């Protein structure tokens, strides 16, 4: 996206439109790898539980963010949960958005988890989302071991 020189106020200064390209390979780590393998292979969502405060964190962490204790215990949580907060993104940003705007995002407290999981909301009327809404994960058919193997969370119809 080049800035036109006249937008600099005819100051006589030049601009150099360019872009930064940087291939990068992130290592998911042992906790994230198991988390994603369970979703990819079994459509199961797992977290880790703190032996001290008993919070269950999803995605799983090696160390409790609250107590700084090791969390060796893995706990399977439900694919259903409750919406804690949400927004509908109505502007477009090239290259970073998984869906065409408008699209909904929320933080979901999965049943059996204590922390919230930020994710997309789908199969939903964008004008009819509310805090406390019950939602369920919809898994992608061709799963490949990343965050979008959960395609989105959809409302559970009462």
């Amino acid at each position, binding site marked *: *996206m080049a*800035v036109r020189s006249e*937008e*600099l*106020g005819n*100051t006589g*200064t030049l601009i150099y439109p360019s872009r*930064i390209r940087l291939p*990068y390979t*992130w290592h*998911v*780590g042992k906790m*994230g790898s198991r988390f994603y393998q369970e979703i990819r292979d079994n459509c199961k969502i797992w977290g880790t539980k703190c032996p001290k405060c008993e919070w269950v*964190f*999803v*995605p799983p962490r090696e160390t409790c*963010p*609250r107590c700084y204790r090791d969390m060796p215990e893995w706990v399977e949580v439900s694919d259903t949960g409750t919406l*804690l*907060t*949400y*927004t*509908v*993104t*109505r*502007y477009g*940003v*090239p*290259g*970073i*958005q*998984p*869906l065409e705007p408008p*699209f909904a*995002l*929320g*933080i979901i407290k999965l049943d059996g988890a204590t*922390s*919230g*999981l*930020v*994710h*997309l909301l789908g199969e939903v009327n964008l004008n009819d989302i509310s*805090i406390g809404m019950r939602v369920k994960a919809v898994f992608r058919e061709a799963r490949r071991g*990343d*965050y*979008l193997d959960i395609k989105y969370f959809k409302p559970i119809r009462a």
Partner: protein
Amino acid sequence: MDKVGIIGVAQTKYQRYNPASHAELAYEVTSKALEDAGLTIDDIDNTITVCNDFWDGRTISSMTITEATGSHKSPTTNVEGDGTYGALMGLMRLLSGLHETTLVVAQSKISEGIPSIITNAMFDPIYERMLGLDAINSAALQMRSYMAKYGVTEEQCAKISVKNHKNARANPYAHLPLDITVKDVLKSRVLADPIKLLDTSPISDGACAIIMARERTAKRKHGKPIWIKGVGHCADAYHLGDRDLAEVDALASAAKRAYNMAGIRSPLKQIHVAEVYDAFSYMELMWMEGLGFCDQGKAGAMVDSGLTEMNGALPVNPSGGVLSAHAVQVAGLARIAEAVLQLRGQAGGRQVDGASTALAHGIEGACGQGHCVFILGK
């Protein structure tokens, strides 16, 4: 704590598409801060720059402005974070006893990049980043959470935008002085509900510099140093889902540390002016709660009462705040510079009469993950 004084401050005017290069911006404020302090570059014995490689579009960005800040061939270190943390590191340099006079320089050219792509990159690449989260829609998750938990309204948030843009009209450095109404804010374009265009801060280029010195030097070199009375900082958890986004625990902790140092027991009474990091309208409400100006969830009512207006008991963001000029990373240092001007009685049309104790606040990370609080006094 040994006494450390702020003896020089400078800012550029904030604007979108400032034609200067980042080094030219850094030079502008370095030379002006020296002039303000009555010093030359030879009086500076160490420098802190505040640069972020993503925003600057180059790696080890700080090393590209050593000449512009006069810091080559001298001790210089970079802080990647908000400018308040640059000032914090500058303070620590002086308290170490190894240095006498520190220059802190922050510059940013936000209009060179695409802010949403850059702020998307603050999220974990193997988790939330691929959801298209950025500074705006993540803030929207927080604003909704805060409003729902405490019954704060969009109107109350809009009042912050109206107040700060109005205050900006008396600040020659401000990017976006505006005469708007609550209705204008509520009717502005929805970006990520409940956040609307006029709840957000502008894309600003700009720079700020401050010069700090140990007590003896500060007194010798400057007639009226502004003293650092207290400082505190604290960070919350990284993943948004680990936090209660409606709460401000990290800020409350940072404020408590700063207040303890400064001997402040009743912030509302003892602080005369506050400059806080209102990147979004609702943030000013939340930060006032974290700073203990009112109880949790009561900031909306406090704003309704007019207490934080220019003629209220505790004016907040007389400069127009970050809503009126948001050069990322610079903005926290600018809060300190504005607080210094207030305490010197040099704030012109935005002066709070008789201010002798001021608060300056900066944030970093998504939804105010980290906070840094300074208490300044005469």
